[in-house]
């Protein structure tokens, strides 16, 4: 049976995401997909969903949602004090939903992005092989009041499970971000290389699904490069000396020197950092 989640209040910035769009980078289409894949996998695993079932990515201030029919949900990633009707609920657990239930969020406790998985995933439109929202590719860019999102209602029990999932949330709070040297790292002067290895950096308020800027200003004497490929996790050094960590919605090419490349785990960790948080790069060879 078709069922819908009604958006009573959109919150700050929420989108529908899956693993993203593969195979269209050569047309300039960003990969997109969830910022934090660990949280997506965990939430879907708890519900025994397909690993790439579409989830809602919720940033800092959560939305208020009303369910039109019974289902199950699980929330992972950041803890934004979720509440079902008037009762607080926990992250990383199966939560049963009844017709008319209202899910809301409160004060952010830790992390930046929370993930709401629903049984069998959200059934929103699929464009170029993915349900991930991206401006101009999908019809919607972010949640708006009054929107309705499709899902499959389910009364029946899949099969009762008593196994619990031990969720390691250490990555949500750790300051150590795993990186590799980027293509232009070797061109940096020694002082700057060791600065990148040793110093702490802070997350700027300028951060979104495309990129996260770091606050510190470095001395940059590198020339721009001929426009070349970039990926999520590429760290660019701008002519003004700022470090920009490209994230899942980043463009496919860029002209700034690529000094570092985050590991997959590093990208997931970075996705959970908010303005003012400190990080340190830990080099992996």
């Amino acid at each position, binding site marked *: 049976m078709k069922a819908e989640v009604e958006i009573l209040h959109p919150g700050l910035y929420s989108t529908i995401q899956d693993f993203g769009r*593969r*195979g*269209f*980078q*050569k*047309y*300039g*289409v*960003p990969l997109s997909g969830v910022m934090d894949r660990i949280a997506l996998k965990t939430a879907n695993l708890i519900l025994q969903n397909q690993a790439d079932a579409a989830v809602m990515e919720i940033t800092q201030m959560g939305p208020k949602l009303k369910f039109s029919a019974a289902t199950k949900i699980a929330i992972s990633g950041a803890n934004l004090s979720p509440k079902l009707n008037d009762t607080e609920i926990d992250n990383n657990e199966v939560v049963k939903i009844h017709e008319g239930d209202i899910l809301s969020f409160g004060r952010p406790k830790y992390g930046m992005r929370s993930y709401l998985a629903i049984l069998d995933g959200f059934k929103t439109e699929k*464009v*170029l092989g993915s349900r991930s929202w991206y401006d*101009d*590719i999908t019809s919607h860019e972010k949640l708006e009041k009054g929107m309705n999102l499709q899902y499959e209602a389910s009364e029946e029990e899949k099969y009762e499970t008593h196994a619990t999932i031990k969720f390691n949330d250490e990555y949500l709070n750790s300051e150590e971000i795993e990186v*590799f040297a*980027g*293509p232009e790292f070797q061109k940096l002067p020694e002082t700057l290389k060791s600065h990148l290895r040793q110093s702490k950096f802070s997350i700027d308020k300028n951060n979104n699904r495309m990129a996260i800027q770091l606050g510190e200003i470095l001395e940059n004497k590198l020339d721009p*490069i*001929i*426009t*070349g*490929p970039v*990926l999520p*996790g*590429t760290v660019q050094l701008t002519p003004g000396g700022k470090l920009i960590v490209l994230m899942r919605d980043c*463009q*496919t*090419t860029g002209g700034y020197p*690529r000094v570092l*490349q*985050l*590991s*997959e785990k590093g990208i997931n960790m970075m996705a959970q950092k908010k303005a003012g948080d400190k990080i340190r790069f830990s080099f992996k060879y």
Partner: protein
Amino acid sequence: MGERGILIEFEPEISEKLLEKLLFYKDKLEEFYDEVNVEVINTYNSLLISYMFSIENVYNEVSAIKELFGEAKIGKINNQQIFHLPVCYEDEFGWDLEYISKEKNLSKKEVVELHTKPFYTVFFTGFLPGFLYLGGLDKKLQISRKDQPRMKIEKGAIGIGENQTGIYPKSSPGGWQILGNCPVQFFDKNNDPPCEITAGDKVKFYSVSKEEFEEISERISEGIFQLKKENYEG
């Protein structure tokens, strides 16, 4: 680049010869890899092999690629096409045509002639979905970007920035000098592939009047516009 990408860089230059080489290797790589798990993109002087999963043994991958490249004798680009794109250079769309003509000591007519003359080479697509990096702009038309970028440039706008010319596939902020507008939307997210024009193809602009522009727009909205294209024999 990280656990999921291998970047192969060539000499830092922008040339058709290098593009030919890159596209040849790109074809080889796509043949070699299963396209489901790997995507290969090119820019002016790089190939990026981007993997869906983490690379297990990077040394094996690199030696396989080296072997693949070693035996290769570079051939011509396959299936090259020329796309003829209509552009309206009239005042309503050519916001900076006046400025360009003054700066460059050319009449507006001469600017349009110089801009519609070349067969531009598509080097790659990047920056925005469907944004083509075109090479071959006449040196006489090279002009620096605007000091203050505009907040909004219309979809389809054709601009010049330094030695590059290109079409904005969607309205966005931008600093290029705008000289016209192309009504054809050659990027369509509902098609697979979403863009017919790819790296190695040629693009040629032809000038149309405001009336023709509107006629073409109408035919596009009715779904009966045929993009003019032909095979290119290099």
